[in-house]
């Protein structure tokens, strides 16, 4: 009788293990939700990186009034063409309508989606954050964007972008390989994993106490983007 009960317990343990394995398999295969970012490709309009952010508080990776009730995390890659479109077309509208008016802060979350050269660019962008010029530098870098994985992000390009951003180029190059910058890269990648970021640009709105929400972008037309952002901030 006792041995029958031991067998039953063994069977129960086995059954529970099977149940858990099934749950884990379903859980690990069910996270393939992709973000929705369809875009138009009009990269004509641009504003000087220096003037675009003039007079707006900036600290590290974040630009905007510290009291702004909402934050938009911007997941982007300096090599990504659609990110360039967003930066050149939409960012000026977002800054004027939402950031300058104190409704929104922008936080840069650069992740290497395209290739190894992205990492060099991202390190430079995060390094510019140490001078509180991250957003100017990122915009300037997009203005110089070359073909994906062509190796266009060189020290010379970084120095040129720094000049256009009003930043100290040699200091950016010196800070790029530091542990502090590495930590920022790791943090951005960790958040990208948390928010299931599958492509760039992707935008996440944080407006406590509501849960953070991925912005559903249907177009990179500045008017459409501003309308969708406005709706998300309601």
């Amino acid at each position, binding site marked *: 009788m006792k041995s029958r009960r031991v067998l039953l317990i063994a069977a*129960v343990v086995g059954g529970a293990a099977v149940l858990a394995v099934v749950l884990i398999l*379903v*859980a690990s295969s069910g996270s393939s939700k992709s973000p929705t970012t369809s875009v138009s490709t009009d990269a004509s309009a641009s504003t000087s990186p220096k003037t675009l952010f003039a007079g707006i508080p900036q600290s590290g990776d974040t630009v905007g009034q510290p009291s702004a009730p909402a934050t938009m995390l911007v997941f982007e890659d300096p090599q990504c063409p659609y990110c360039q479109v967003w930066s050149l077309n939409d960012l000026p509208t977002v800054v004027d309508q939402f950031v300058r008016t104190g409704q929104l802060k922008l936080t840069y979350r650069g992740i290497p989606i395209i290739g190894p050269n992205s990492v060099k660019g991202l390190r430079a962008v995060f390094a510019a954050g140490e001078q509180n010029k991250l957003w100017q530098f990122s915009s300037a870098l997009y203005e110089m964007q070359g073909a994906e994985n062509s190796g266009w992000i060189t020290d010379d390009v970084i120095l040129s972008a720094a000049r256009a951003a009003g930043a100290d180029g040699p200091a950016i190059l010196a800070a790029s390989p530091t542990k502090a910058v590495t930590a920022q890269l790791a943090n951005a990648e960790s958040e990208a994993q948390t928010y299931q970021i599958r492509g760039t640009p992707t935008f996440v709105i944080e407006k406590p106490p509501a849960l953070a929400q991925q912005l559903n972008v249907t177009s990179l037309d500045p008017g459409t983007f501003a309308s969708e952002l406005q709706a998300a901030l309601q």
Partner: protein
Amino acid sequence: MTRLRWAILALAIVGTAIAAYLTYVHYADVAPICTTGGCEKVQRSSYAKIAGVPVALLGLFAYTAIAATTLWRGVAAATVGAVLALGGVAFSGYLLWAQLGPIGAICQWCLGNDVVIALVAVLSVVRLATEPD
């Protein structure tokens, strides 16, 4: 009802309360009360759902079922309770690994659940071993 079944029932009610709160937080779309700082990050992660179903809701069903098994005597009820509790422990272990690894954040509610489900599992196995035929 034996003291063992009462103990399992009491723990299952605590687990149900935790799971119910996290299910409410999920569907109400609000941030959970959190002292560890990582609850929202965990809740927003891809590990918080299975095939579109919130893990908290699955936990709610599991704890309710475990509580229900304490209302009946016999090996059959003890067996069902033990399978659910041990399965819950194993899956909670997986979620703990996810918090410490890929997510990189800890949720106090999940840790509380881990403790409760571990105790329920131990007591459920003891019950299965000692339950009269």
